[in-house]
């Protein structure tokens, strides 16, 4: 089995950072550049003839991964091998050959086609650039390609605006096929299309793969599309791959809490959807400018791991961890907590008169659950310094009692056919420490 499916693409520790505050002016002003870690060390293989899906929410780094591995962007670190050669070392003839073998289809069929060119010229352009065949042969090939993607050869003389979204996506596919590539990155190829048209395009992509033995990397935020099309799936969160494995396993037995949450969140188009109990995860995706320490999903993870010696319900622990974040980010408006227990003194300083009542109000406002007496007492004590606006002490006290392995160490993805980067999954000691 594994012999037949040699990896066509091998991605190893790929990193792509973008820099903010990096203009000449910023440097003159002595501003430190801020790294936006769009892709932060991802490794995976794409096997010949398969479709690998890359799924995740917007901004998690899917497209940047696709573009960087095609060398449409230069990487910050890591390597990509295509048919055994490092893509970033290629030059001259070899680079040209790679550009022929590896193609891309973008999401937006409205802006990715030059409106002033006929679709014949659009499809023929790669043939011209790579000087494939004679003029007549190129024109003949364009006609074949248009027909192959379900358009008519006569359409070659028309302009993109004369076509619907689905048809324009077919034109983009014809162009990607022109040079008989081995590998195509499909970046949200049907996201701008209506479902009925999406189905046409997905079927077409399926046929083309069978006919030409193509290998696909399909980038999508739509889990149903991924499920339908992909042999294997990689799930991304905040620049990292958190789980990768065969499609049936990812959808049937997801291991990573994020994968589980994603799958749970998708509303099913069936009449029993209303009664389906599902747990939604709270909060937003944190910024890739300042990702959380340890496991990046820990700020939202319903399964975040409590310290060994703590006896507490999981949902209560989750509520405390969310409270900790609010304290660490100083995201509680102390002036508006309670009414009677605080006032503003003559100097405009905020003074708490009744600390116990004040802390009770903070808890009532932030904690989503009531805690068992012992933890309630500990949290109350930890929050008391907030009455003096002493955030750091409160944060430290909370960390001391409630600090999780999930915030101290970033779990490794590990190996095997279906690894997941989570301390609950990987054996202890599998983690890389934080830099």
């Amino acid at each position: 089995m594994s012999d037949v499916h040699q990896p066509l693409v091998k991605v190893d520790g790929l990193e792509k950072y973008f820099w903010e505050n990096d203009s000449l002016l910023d440097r003159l002003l002595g501003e430190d550049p801020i790294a936006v870690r769009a892709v932060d060390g991802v490794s995976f293989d794409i096997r010949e003839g398969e479709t690998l899906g890359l799924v995740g929410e917007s901004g998690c780094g899917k497209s940047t991964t696709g573009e960087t591995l095609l060398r449409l962007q230069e990487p910050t670190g890591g390597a990509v091998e295509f048919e055994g050669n490092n893509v970033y070392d290629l030059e001259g003839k070899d680079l040209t050959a790679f550009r022929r073998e590896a193609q891309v289809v973008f999401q937006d069929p409205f802006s990715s086609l030059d409106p002033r060119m006929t679709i014949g010229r659009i499809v023929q352009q790669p043939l011209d650039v790579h000087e494939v065949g004679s003029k007549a042969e190129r024109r003949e090939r364009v006609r074949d390609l248009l027909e192959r993607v379900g358009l008519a050869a006569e359409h070659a003389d028309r302009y993109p605006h004369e076509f619907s979204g689905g048809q324009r996506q077919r034109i983009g596919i014809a162009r990607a096929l022109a040079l008989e590539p081995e590998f195509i990155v499909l970046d949200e190829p049907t996201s701008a299309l209506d479902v009925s048209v999406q189905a046409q395009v997905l079927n077409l992509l399926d046929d083309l793969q069978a006919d030409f033995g193509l290998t696909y990397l399909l980038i999508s935020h739509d889990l149903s599309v991924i499920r339908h099309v992909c042999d294997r799936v990689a799930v991304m969160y905040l620049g990292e791959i958190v789980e990768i494995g065969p499609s049936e396993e990812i959808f049937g037995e997801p291991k990573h809490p994020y994968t589980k949450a994603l799958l749970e969140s998708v509303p099913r188009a069936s009449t029993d959807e209303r009664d389906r109990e599902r747990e939604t995860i709270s909060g937003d995706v944190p910024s890739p400018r300042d990702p959380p320490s340890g496991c990046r999903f820990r700020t939202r993870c319903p399964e975040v791991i409590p310290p060994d010696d703590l006896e507490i319900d999981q949902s209560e622990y989750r509520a405390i961890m969310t409270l900790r974040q609010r304290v660490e980010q100083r995201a509680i408006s102390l002036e508006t907590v309670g009414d009677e227990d605080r006032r503003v003194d003559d100097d405009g300083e905020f003074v708490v008169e009744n600390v116990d009542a004040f802390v009770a109000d903070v808890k009532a406002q932030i904690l989503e659950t009531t805690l068992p007496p012992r933890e309630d007492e500990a949290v109350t004590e930890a929050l008391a310094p907030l009455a003096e606006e002493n955030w750091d002490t409160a944060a430290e006290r909370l960390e001391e009692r409630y600090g999780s392995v999930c915030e101290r160490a970033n779990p490794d993805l590990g190996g095997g056919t279906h690894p997941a980067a989570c301390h609950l999954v990987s054996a202890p000691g599998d983690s890389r420490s934080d830099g």
Partner: protein
Amino acid sequence: MSNVTDILRIDGLKTRFFTDNGQVNAVEDLDVRIEDGEVFGIVGESGSGKSVMALSIIDLIERPGRITDGEIWFRAPDIADELVETDAVDGDYVDLRAMSPEQRGLLRGSRFSMIFQDPMSSFNPSITVGEQIAEAVEAQRRARSNPRSLDAKSQHYGLTDYLLGGVLSSKRYVSEPSLDRAIELLELVGIPDPAERAEEYPHEYSGGMLQRAMIAQALAGEPDVLIADEPTTALDVTIQAQVLDLLAELQTETGMTILLITHNLGVVARMCDRVGVMYAGEIVERGTLGDVFDNPVHPYTQGLLGSIPDLQGVAERLQPIEGNVPSLLDHEMPDRCYFADRCPKAMEECLEHPPELAVNDRGQHATRCYLAETEYTAAKALPTDYFGATEAPAEADTAPEEPTATDGGDHQ
């Protein structure tokens, strides 16, 4: 007749856009009844007229568009009392189209509110979120404190408000109680640290948080009907789940009616009691969720359900609907079933435009398709090439590229 009360009855609504390319029939002879306190889903692909229908209800159709025909009856006994003895009243119902624009304007916010796909475009970028919500609170307070809310004085207020809103909005004064109420509303929609967040500007919010803030703003006037146009389309699935839960919770708490417009059949299944499927400006099938999802009659509904890939599913081949979305240009809309050129079951009778036909005698399930009454037989079928080749360049694109009032099919 059933004893549930309708809050909205739309009869024969026609909304058209008079463009350089010709007359666009965006909403065509649309009938629908929305029950008080239900979540009614409108589902359909881009350009089918969902947004235009919504904007027609709250009177936000702008030039070159115009409602050209139809009645929109809204249940409001108090207003009916005031307007009694005019054509605009039928029992507890008032015909919104027969009211003056000023009178209708006053209903916006207090009776009807609307939220959109893109919250960024409905907030002013240079005013804090808290102030903008407080403004909505204030506008509603003033409207409510005026006992004779439909007399000339309040019309005058409406106009000034409108003018000031456009010109001086950043200078407007919002009172302390309104700001407090705004913070309460932000808290109600689940914004953490609402007092702090109220002082932030729209760009400081994430997409999901801003969508919540827009919901807060829409709730300021405690509306009876909330129209939500693709409210979660721009959001990631985990955030979509949060916002849907929020809407469901608010609906249960307040008992308001929600008209939920979406292209996502999963969202409809999660949220809606009843649903209408739109195609080419018409509701082509309507019924309870079970009617439409489990026993669809119209081939378009069947096609729509067949073309979504299944999350659970084995990799069967998808069953797409062949062809393209239709043109809504009047001169390109033949007087036949608008779906006939893509319909796998098109028959001779389909060359005459079908009326809405009941599917059964329970009164909920109806469709604009002859299959409600006739069996399909190959003998009656139109020849396959009757409408010409399907893959001709899309006529759909003769419609304007980016209509301002709508998402123009630009959902992700």
